[in-house]
């Protein structure tokens, strides 16, 4: 029983934080939303250098994993820095392929996993448990679908649709395409990949919530109204205190889910992270006032992402149902 990150894991978080702080992720996210993927790809290359994409991939396929706790550590930082792109989906695709390999379907893993692990390729996908749209289908190197027990390489995608989060662009993969695998193993692997997607999304949401809280606390210390910093007003203090309570009780759920990967734990983490990060966004917007409501103010990147991630890979209602289903 040692439910604490070890020194190495903490150091990993710190180094990712430092790297992303230096990488101007805000500019990359804004460019990404405008359809310019260059700066975002540069951030991805740095993440790849740091080994982030190798974490879910078994050593056999040139990865270092699967390491779910380290993946959660990384995704908290990705959320804190508003990194754009199909990060969750790339992890989910890697897990799907690795799981299929374990069930005996090794060809797709051999073909794609090494490039996903190295960061040479990004991926997006739709699964039975996701919506019909794939994140960044126009930007990802690999667009997979794994519905109805068939894993396919999508032949393209329909029109790109814009999300409330400007850095998220979604499109439905076109039907058909090369059949990579089929049968119950695909369905089982998709389920496992969904759990990882939910875990990664939860960790990312937690990071988004922490960033929103940090920025709002800093703002409340310097913004004056009625002759005093607004951070002296008790209504402001208490609202931020409640945000901290919720985030600090989400953190153990996220790392608990990363540790056990139990369906109930993953579901609990997804619900709590989605709701608490969104609560942080509501508080951050209200306490910033009008400035927070503008797209040009950087806070907007996290505000809109908190809302989008709450619904991504299933909204809290869907996952609450799974919390109870896991107890049957």
């Amino acid at each position: 029983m040692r439910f604490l990150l070890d020194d190495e894991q903490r150091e990993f978080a710190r180094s990712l934080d430092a790297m992303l702080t230096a990488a101007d992720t805000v500019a990359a996210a804004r460019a990404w939303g405008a359809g310019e993927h260059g700066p975002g790809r540069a951030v991805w290359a740095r993440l790849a250098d740091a080994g982030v994409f190798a974490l879910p991939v078994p050593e056999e396929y040139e990865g270092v994993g699967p390491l779910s706790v380290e993946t959660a550590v990384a995704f908290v930082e990705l959320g804190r820095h508003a990194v754009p792109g199909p990060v969750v989906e790339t992890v989910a695709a890697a897990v799907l392929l690795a799981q299929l390999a374990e069930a005996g379907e090794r060809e797709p893993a051999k073909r794609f996993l090494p490039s996903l692990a190295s960061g040479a390729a990004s991926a997006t996908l739709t699964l039975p448990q996701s919506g019909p749209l794939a994140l960044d289908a126009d930007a990802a190197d690999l667009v997979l679908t794994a519905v109805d027990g068939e894993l396919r390489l999508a032949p393209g995608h329909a029109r790109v649709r814009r999300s409330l989060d400007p850095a998220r662009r979604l499109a439905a993969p076109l039907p058909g395409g090369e059949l990579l695998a089929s049968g119950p193993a695909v369905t089982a692997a998709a389920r496992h990949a969904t759990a990882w997607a939910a875990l990664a999304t939860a960790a990312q949401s937690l990071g988004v919530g922490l960033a929103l809280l940090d920025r709002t606390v800093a703002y409340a210390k310097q913004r004056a109204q009625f002759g005093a910093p607004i951070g002296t007003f008790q209504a402001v203090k208490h609202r931020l205190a409640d945000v901290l309570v919720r985030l600090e009780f989400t953190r153990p759920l996220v790392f608990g889910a990363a540790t056990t990967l139990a369906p109930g734990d993953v579901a609990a983490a997804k619900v709590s992270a989605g709701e608490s990060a969104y609560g942080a966004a509501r508080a951050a917007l209200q306490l910033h006032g009008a400035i927070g409501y503008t797209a040009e103010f950087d806070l907007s990147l996290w505000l809109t992402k908190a809302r989008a991630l709450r619904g991504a890979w299933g909204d809290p209602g869907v996952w609450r149902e799974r919390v109870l289903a896991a107890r049957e």
Partner: protein
Amino acid sequence: MDLEFTPEEAEFRQRARDWLAAHVPPRPLPSLETAEGFTAHRAWERELAADRWSVVSWPEEYGGQGADIVKWLVFEEEYYAAGAPGRVSQNGINLLAPTLFDFGTEEQRARVLPAMATGEVIWAQAWSEPESGSDLASLRSTARRTDGGWLLSGQKTWSSRAAFADRAFGLFRSGPGEPHGTAADRPAKPHHGLTYLMFPLDADGVTVRPVGRLDGKPAFAELFLDDVFVPDEDVIGEPGQGWRIAMSTTGNERGLTLRSPGRFLAAADRLVRQWRARTDTADTALRDRVADAVIGARAYELFTWANASRFTAGGTIGAESSLNKVFWSEYDIALHETALDLLGPDGELLDGSPADGPDWTEGYVFSLAGPIYAGTNEIQRDIIAERLLGLPKGRR
């Protein structure tokens, strides 16, 4: 105590309903926060005005029908139930016009109001400044006296509609004692020496910088003013009395006319329809939130009828408008959150709503501003606690 309409009111309702059925565009106009949509909404205002439906409560001489408050509320109910477009003229109609009726000159009313009624001139508001959010008394933009008028300088922000509008109105410091942000050097009475002025957005010295809201649409703008000349005829009321005049307007903004119940009734109806249309009808988990949307719309409607009855009986509304502001602004967000959750995965899309009404996501983004503008809800709660409950002032 009754909720019955007179035959005359019922006839008015039917007339409004018939006109709207014949004129409301079959599909939603483009967002009024875009150049294209602004033009389309301006044309819609002209169409409304042609048959005197743009400002039903104004006197006939300015383009209205002289409708009383009950009829006005009936019209709004029918308007939203018909799925009619948002009102691009609302800043002028709701905020400037009441001020002109109360404090303007005959000449100003005759000059300004008819063009406002037809949508020929669309007005933006210019209250806030970068350093004064809810603390309106700390304004710094100035109006300097010059021959036959005033020279405006400074910066305004969060100016709704200003990206595409024609003219704007706001407060400028014309008297002594320029305030600063900190307590120490604020003048003792910072709300003294403010003057209420109207000015054109295309005048020399005005720079308009559109500002995108959360969904990127330029819902407001920053205004940079550099010795912008305004003739005396565009001062409303006495110079230096702007605070008092504006307070009457912002009271109005929070009060009855800001959000008509019709809008929420129509939205709640649509929510019920969409909830029933869900594929998974066995799942009642969202049911309670949909029911709360219905209950809240009805509560707001009945609260408004009670206020309208009070007005009609000669009563007034004061700090009670803060109750109204807190209620509708939080209700509006909850309603839209429920709508987005009903949409499921499509709830994050900027164009993910069924075409039977306005886009829920755009409505959601719009609703998020509710607890912030026209006096934040934190300030409203202070007002409620101190003025309505009589709790002691002083600390916050």
